[in-house]
C-alpha cells in the first residue's frame, strides 16, 4: 500500500520482556501496576530510573490521568513521551513509535509500559463508557460488551465459511496447553475439547471459554539501540517489519477482514521474510474468531480457508505453528491495555531465550499481531510486527 519504500529498523533493539503477574481482581490502581512494571524493567536492565529518556504508556484506567500525569506520579523526566490509547494494538504501535524515536535520536532508552487494574466493577464501567458510538449505539442494546460484538462476528463467519465450534475450540485448547507451562497464566487447569463444547453460552454462539477474563496486570519492554543493549548485556530481538492501520475497510457491512489484509504485503516486503518463515505467532486473541481472522489476513492461509488450516496444525509450542505460546489472553487473562502487550512481550521471551513457559525450539522469527478498540461495530486498530532473534548472550 505504501507509495515509497519505508526505512527499516536497523540499529533498534527490543529487550527486557516484563510481565507483572496477573490477578483476577486488584484494589490497587493502574498507576500501581504500571509502576511495578517499570521497576521490574529497570531492575532487569540493571539501570537507574534516570536512564529512561523515553516512555510509551497504555492503560484504560489511568483516567483522569494520561501518560503526562503518570510521569509526575512516577518521578520521571523523559525527553520523549507517547500515550497510546489503542487497546489490543498498543504493543505493536508502542514498538513502532519507540523504534523510530530511537533511530532518530529523539530518545535512546524507551520504556514501553502497559497496565491496568481490575476492581470488581471496573470492567462494567469501561464497557459502559468505552466510546461515544458504543454509548449511543451498542451499550443500550443488551449491554453485552465485547462478548456481543464478537458474537455477531462469530455468527457471521460460522454461517458463511462453515467453520465450527470444534475448530475454534481447537485453538482455545491448544492455547491452554501452552498456558499450563506458563507460571503467570490465571487458568491453570487443562481444558479438553469436550469441556470447551459443553461450556455455558454467554452470547450465542460464544460460550464461556471463547471469552477472555478481565483481570489486573502489567507488561513492559524496552526499546533502545543495539549498541546500548549490548553495553548493558541485554539479550534482544530485532525489528524486521511493522504495520498499523485504523478503520480499515469502512464500507464492509461487517468486519470479516481486518487491516492486516490491507498491509500484510507491505509488512513482509519490509521484513524480507514471509509467513512461512515464522517459528511462532502471537496474535491478539480476545476471541478465537479474531485469532482465526488474523491467520487468514496475515497470509498464513487464503481467506476463507482457515478451517482447513486449523485442522492441519497443532498450534502448541512443541507442534506446528506454535500460537500464543504463553497461553494468550484466553488463558493468561486480559489485563486491560496490557493485553495489547502480552503477545509482544512473550515473543521477546521466545526470541531472547528467556521463556518462562515452553520454549519454541530454535525460534528465529516470530510474528506479533495486535487488534484493538471496538468503537462501534468493529475493532478499529490493527497492527503487526515481524521480529527476529538478535544478540543473545
Amino acid at each position, binding site marked *: 500500500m505504501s507509495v515509497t519504500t519505508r526505512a527499516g529498523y536497523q540499529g533498534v533493539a527490543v529487550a527486557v520482556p516484563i510481565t507483572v503477574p496477573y490477578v483476577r481482581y486488584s484494589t490497587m490502581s493502574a498507576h500501581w501496576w504500571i509502576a511495578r512494571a517499570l521497576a521490574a524493567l529497570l531492575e532487569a536492565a540493571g539501570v537507574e530510573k534516570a536512564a529512561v529518556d523515553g516512555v510509551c504508556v497504555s492503560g484504560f484506567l489511568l483516567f483522569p490521568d494520561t501518560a503526562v500525569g503518570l510521569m509526575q506520579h512516577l518521578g520521571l523526566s523523559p525527553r520523549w513521551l507517547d500515550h497510546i490509547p489503542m487497546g489490543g494494538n498498543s504493543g505493536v504501535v508502542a514498538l513502532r513509535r519507540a523504534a523510530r524515536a530511537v533511530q532518530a535520536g529523539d530518545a535512546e532508552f524507551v520504556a514501553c509500559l502497559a497496565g491496568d487494574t481490575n476492581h470488581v466493577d471496573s*470492567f*462494567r464501567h469501561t*464497557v*459502559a*463508557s468505552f466510546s*461515544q*458510538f458504543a*454509548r*449511543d*449505539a*451498542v*451499550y*443500550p*442494546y*443488551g*449491554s*453485552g*460488551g465485547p*462478548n*456481543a460484538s464478537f*458474537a*455477531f*462476528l462469530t*455468527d*457471521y463467519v460460522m*454461517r458463511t465459511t462453515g467453520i465450527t465450534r470444534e475448530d475454534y475450540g481447537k485453538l482455545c485448547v491448544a492455547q491452554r496447553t501452552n498456558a499450563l507451562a506458563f507460571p503467570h497464566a490465571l487458568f491453570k487447569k487443562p481444558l479438553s475439547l469436550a469441556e470447551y463444547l459443553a461450556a*455455558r*453460552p*454467554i*452470547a*450465542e*454462539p*460464544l460460550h464461556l471459554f471463547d471469552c477472555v477474563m478481565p483481570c489486573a496486570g502489567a507488561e513492559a519492554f524496552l526499546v533502545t539501540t543495539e549498541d546500548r543493549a549490548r553495553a548493558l548485556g541485554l539479550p534482544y530481538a530485532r525489528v524486521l517489519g511493522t504495520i498499523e492501520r485504523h478503520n480499515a475497510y*469502512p464500507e464492509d*457491512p*461487517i468486519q470479516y477482514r481486518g487491516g492486516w489484509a490491507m498491509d500484510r504485503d507491505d509488512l513482509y516486503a519490509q521484513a524480507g521474510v514471509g509467513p512461512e518463515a515464522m517459528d511462532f505467532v502471537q496474535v491478539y486473541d480476545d476471541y478465537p474468531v479474531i485469532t482465526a481472522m488474523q491467520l487468514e489476513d496475515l497470509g498464513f492461509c487464503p481467506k476463507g480457508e482457515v478451517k482447513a488450516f486449523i485442522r492441519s496444525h497443532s498450534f502448541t509450542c512443541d507442534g506446528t505453528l506454535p500460537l500464543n505460546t504463553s497461553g494468550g489472553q484466553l488463558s493468561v487473562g486480559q489485563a486491560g491495555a496490557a493485553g495489547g502487550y502480552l503477545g509482544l512481550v512473550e515473543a521477546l521471551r521466545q526470541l531472547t531465550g528467556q521463556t518462562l513457559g515452553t520454549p519454541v525450539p530454535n525460534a528465529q522469527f516470530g510474528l506479533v499481531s495486535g487488534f484493538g478498540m471496538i468503537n*462501534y*461495530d468493529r475493532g478499529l486498530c490493527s497492527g503487526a510486527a515481524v521480529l527476529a532473534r538478535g544478540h543473545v548472550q
Partner: protein
Amino acid sequence: MTAPLQRPNKKNPVCKTRQPTLPPWTRSRVALGMTAAAAEGRFELQRCARCQAVQYPPREACHRCLCIDLPWVEIDGGGKLISQTRLLHSHDLYFRERVPWRLGMVQLDAGPTAVVHLHGDVAAPPARVRVACKLDKAGMAVLVGFPAEEVPNMADDRQLRELTCNPQFRRVFVTDGKTATGQAVVRALAAAGADLIWVGHAEPWKLVPGLAALQALEQVTLVPLDVTDQRSIKEVASQVGAKVDILINTAEYHRAFSISARQGTDIARMEMDVNYLGLLRLAQEFGPVMKARGADGQSSAVAWVNLLSIFALANFPSHGTYSASKAAALSLAQCLRAEMRVAGVRVINVFPGPIDDEWNQLLPPPKLAPTAVANAIIDALRDGIEDVYPGDVAQEWRMRLKDSAKAFERELSVGSGT
C-alpha cells in the same frame, strides 16, 4: 412464532414487587436527534446535505465528505439481517434481569450497519427485516428489527413489550368519563382489551348522556372523582392506585374566552384548577404508587397519558385563558415525565386540534371527532409514542411552529392561524 399474550395470573402477595430498573440512558447530544423523532413514532437518521450519505451512529460531521450539515430525515427501515446473537449475560442490571435477549446486526438499505433489538419472529440471517425506532424504558431511542411482513401476535413479543404500553389485559384509570372524549377513550380501551377500566366522574348527582352506557360495559367501574379536590383523589388513589397500569387524564375545563371577553378571573381560575392543578394533584396521589410498580410483571405500570391541546404550544387568542392553562399543564407534564422516567413509566402527551364538542362550537372545521382522539391515544400506547398530534389542525400547527414560532404567533394574533 410469538405466543398470543395471555391474561396474567393474579399476583402472588408473598413475592416482593421487583424494583424498576432502566436500560442504559447515557447518549451524546447528537444521538438525541433519534429520540426526538422516535417520540413521535418516526425513524430518522442524519443524511448529509452535500453527499447524501446516511450516517449511523449519529455524527458531528459526514463520514464521507466531512460536511457538517446533517439534517435528520425519515429513513425507510428496510434492511438485511446479516448476523444475530442471543445474550445470556449482560453487564447491565436491566438486561441481566431480562436475558435471554435477542440482538441483530442489520445492514440498512439506506447504507449503514446497525445493532438492533431483534423481534423473535425474524428468521435467522440472512433475512429481510424492517427496522423501526422506538423509545425504551429509559425514554431513549433504540432500533428494533421486525419481520419484514406482519406476523400473528407481532405486538406480543416479549422484548417488544418492553417498548410499548399495549392496554390489552391492563388496568386503566380514566379520570373523567363525563366528556365526549373521555367516553370515547373508555370505549376504545374496552375494544383494545383492557381488563379493568375505572372511570372517574365529578359531581355524580349530575347525570350526563352516555355515562349509563359506559357503566354497562363489563370492564367499567364508575368512581366518583373530582380533580379539584385533593381529598377525593387521595381517597380513590388509596383504593385503586396500586392496581393502575395506565392513567389517562381526560379531565379538562374549557371555556372560549380571551382576556377582554370576560371580566374577572373566575373562569381562568377554574381552567387552572382543573387543567393544571388537577394534573398536579393526580400526579401527587397516583404518581408515587405507579412509580413503585414500574417493573411489576407482565402488567406493570407503564403509561400516564395527558390530554392536552395544540393550544398548549401557542396561545389561541379566542381561547386565551384555556390555552394558558394547557401551556401550564404541558410544563407540568414535562416535570412529571422527568419524575416518572426513573421508573420506566412513559408520560404521553396528546395535543389534539379543536375537538368537535360544545366548547369548540364556533370554531370552523376541520374538528376532531372524540373517537379520533381516543384512537390516537390507543395507537400511541400500542406503538410506544410519547408525543401525539392528532388531526390536521394539530399537524399544521406543528409545521408552522417548527418553521417560525414568531411568524405563527403573528398569524394567530390576526386570526389567520387556523
